[in-house]
């Protein structure tokens, strides 16, 4: 056909014909789900190397799965972080609050109060427990699914909701898509919509901290799908070259919108194993085991703080809900996956652990869930006083032109004047 070559036999008559491999997930809508192919390791069975070990020593842990909480709801083995009950209850409360927050914000979007929302249901431990293992002034470079970090660091819910509603109370002046938070005061870097850009930035921040003999480290989060971006690989190279005090948290929730992790390479190896080739430490943890997540993050933080280098942590977890409010996962994956996920639910597992050690009860859990829902509801009410998206209570027009540069150049002055002119034509007062 014209300039296009027709399909033709392979070059050379006796050479075998090549064929292209295109990954395919195990299950599609309607398929019965059997996750028995996922190797679930025995809690407590994984060795915990010295935090300052050679990176290569972590090799076996990049294909294993660090687990602490067992089916008996007890903590096992060398990775048990041995947290006191008060800390465990805090962890549980933060995770429950994240879940209650997600529920309500999702509903708010459905009710038209904002344009967009993203839940992290099932992945709460990967941000909450990880953040709790860091110092509060360690700099975090999150992706969009780490609301748990802000909540663990005590960022006011009402500020989060103001941002989600893009209202006049929004500290980011209504400029960013909902959930793209930023809080310098909480050492929480401004979130980008462009995937994986935060990773080399985290390395740069960590390098700066090392240049200045600071003691703070950097930690970044990224979805497994996004590790395909160049930025991930540039970040790993820089981190290895400069032995930067940085942690890369790869949240492997199995799905990147409709693409399963195989499209980021999981059919061949684990995401933690990426570390091996770069010569940096790697750990693969049960991301639904809050104690294992805490322990791994703490290990990596101690390693970084001791100038022993960067770590990749793969948090093996499951995205229990849709990618965002714009997504309908029933179009591309089996609904049974969520029920069949072999690593359970992080909130439930921590709750059962606390009950098993005699530090919690179902009644307390119920009361806490109720309190979380009330807390979110109250914050929502407060935030709504500042307006919801599209209902007039936004930041003034001239704010649109601020912060493009430190100072307003002449052309933005002119454009700001035009915007205000247009407002007066549209709404003459």
């Amino acid at each position, binding site marked *: *056909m*014209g*300039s*296009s*070559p*027709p*399909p033709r036999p392979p070059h050379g008559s006796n050479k075998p014909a090549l*064929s*292209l491999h*295109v*990954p*395919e997930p195990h299950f*599609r809508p309607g398929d019965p789900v059997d996750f028995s192919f996922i190797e679930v390791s025995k809690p407590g069975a994984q060795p915990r190397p010295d935090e300052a070990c050679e990176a290569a020593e972590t090799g076996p842990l990049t294909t294993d799965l660090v687990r602490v909480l067992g089916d008996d709801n007890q903590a096992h083995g060398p990775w048990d972080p041995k947290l006191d009950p008060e800390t465990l209850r805090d962890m549980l409360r933060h995770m429950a609050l994240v879940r209650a927050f997600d529920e309500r914000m999702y509903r708010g979007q459905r009710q038209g109060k904002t*344009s*967009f929302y993203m839940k992290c249901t099932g992945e709460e431990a990967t941000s909450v427990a990880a953040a709790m293992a860091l110092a509060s002034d360690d700099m975090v470079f999150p992706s969009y699914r780490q609301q748990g970090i802000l909540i663990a660091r005590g960022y006011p819910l009402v500020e989060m909701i103001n941002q989600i509603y*893009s*209202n006049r109370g*929004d500290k980011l002046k*209504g*400029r*960013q*898509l*909902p959930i*793209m938070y930023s809080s310098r005061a909480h050492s929480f870097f401004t979130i*980008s*919509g*462009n*995937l994986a850009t935060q990773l080399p930035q985290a390395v740069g921040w960590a390098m700066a901290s090392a240049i200045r003999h600071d003691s703070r480290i950097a930690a970044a989060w990224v979805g497994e*799908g*996004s590790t*395909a*971006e*160049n*930025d991930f690989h540039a970040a790993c190279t820089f981190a290895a070259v400069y032995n930067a005090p940085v942690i890369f948290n790869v949240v492997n929730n199995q799905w*990147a*919108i*409709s*693409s399963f992790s195989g*499209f*980021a*390479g999981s059919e061949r190896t684990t995401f933690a194993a990426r570390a091996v080739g770069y010569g940096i430490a790697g750990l693969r943890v049960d991301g639904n085991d809050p104690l294992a997540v805490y322990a791994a993050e703490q290990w990596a933080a101690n390693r970084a703080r001791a100038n022993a280098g960067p770590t990749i942590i793969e948090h093996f977890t499951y995205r229990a809900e849709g990618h965002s409010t*714009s997504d309908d996962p029933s179009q*591309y994956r089996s609904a049974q996956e969520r029920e069949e996920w072999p690593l359970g639910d992080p909130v439930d597992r921590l709750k059962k652990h606390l009950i098993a050690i005699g530090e919690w009860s179902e009644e307390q859990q119920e009361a806490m869930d109720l309190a979380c829902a009330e807390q979110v509801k109250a914050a929502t009410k407060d935030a709504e006083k500042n307006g919801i*998206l*599209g209902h007039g209570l*936004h*930041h003034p*027009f001239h*704010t*649109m*032109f601020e912060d*493009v540069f430190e100072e307003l150049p002449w*052309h*933005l002055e002119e*454009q700001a004047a*035009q*915007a205000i*002119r*247009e407002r007066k034509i*549209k709404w003459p007062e």
Partner: protein
Amino acid sequence: MARMSADLTEDDIPVSQLEASSRRMNMIEAINDALDIMLSHDPSVIVMGEDVGYFGGVFRATAGLQAKYGKTRVFDTPISECGIIGAAVGMGAYGLRPVPEIQFADYIYPGIDQLISEAARLRYRSAGEFIAPLTVRSPFGGGIFGGQTHSQSPEAIFTHVAGLKTVIPATPRDAKGLLIAAIEDNDPVIFFEPKRIYNGPFSGYYDKPVEPWKNHPDSEVPEGYYRIPLGKARVARSGDAMTILTYGTMVHVAQAVCQAKGVDAEILDLRTLVPLDVEAVENSVQKTGKCLVVHEATRTSGFGAELAALVQERCFYHLEAPVERVTGFDTPYPHSLEWAYFPGPVRIGDAIDKLLEA
């Protein structure tokens, strides 16, 4: 070289033939139809991108195509725009005709080195030994409350690059015919799809109900194969009061404003920015004597600057007033103030008044 086969190259289909076998489509359906036809006509056509395979794309533009043509013709890719475009360049070098999708134009930047340094220059640097016959499809533009990373109009970045063609359809009928022509073109084409008009011809009056495509004459899309040649503009509205040069979503906004104000402007839908139909531009401006350029993209170094320069170079002695530009502001696309940012009816109306008074 640019045409596939003789029986399929009628650039201008007689209107009677169009009406004989056509179907109402929205823009997504028209794009899907074009891809379907090209996949079936040409075994070297490959469709790939993030979420385009089984799922059929986040805007559903590739829905059903993997089931129909199989996983080695239509497939998902890793989330790496550099990889997507680089691989498409390599496939093109082999002799395939890839149609990669970049999920949002805002996410094309990681692939930009492969586009600018590679795809755009392969033919030149190899003296024609290697070509990059790819068509990079990508939804662009705002008006959907997508914030700064789902709203950009980066076309001028690409029109500035020697060796890239840039195409922007404004109707379902054009989307299909232009996409087919782009895929058959042997040079790399950036094909930006105005996402705000995927489902209806947005008028810019955002507080009015959304019109579906089915009420618009250009949603009547011919069945089967046809091409609309690259480099040919379309008169979206003929008139004498002034010439409005525009493309994409803004064609519809400009039309609505002219109608609301009762202005007899000639609206030229450019359809292809590079190569530009400069003859159509000249003819219209020389007729009307006034020129307004409208685009949603930011103003400074936008494509409007190129248009204004061309018009003054070629039509200076016909001009009765300076060329006016209506554009997005030179800020990132804001979320809550989307409609204050968008170059809507008020901004366009203002510029029209200024030209009318001149």
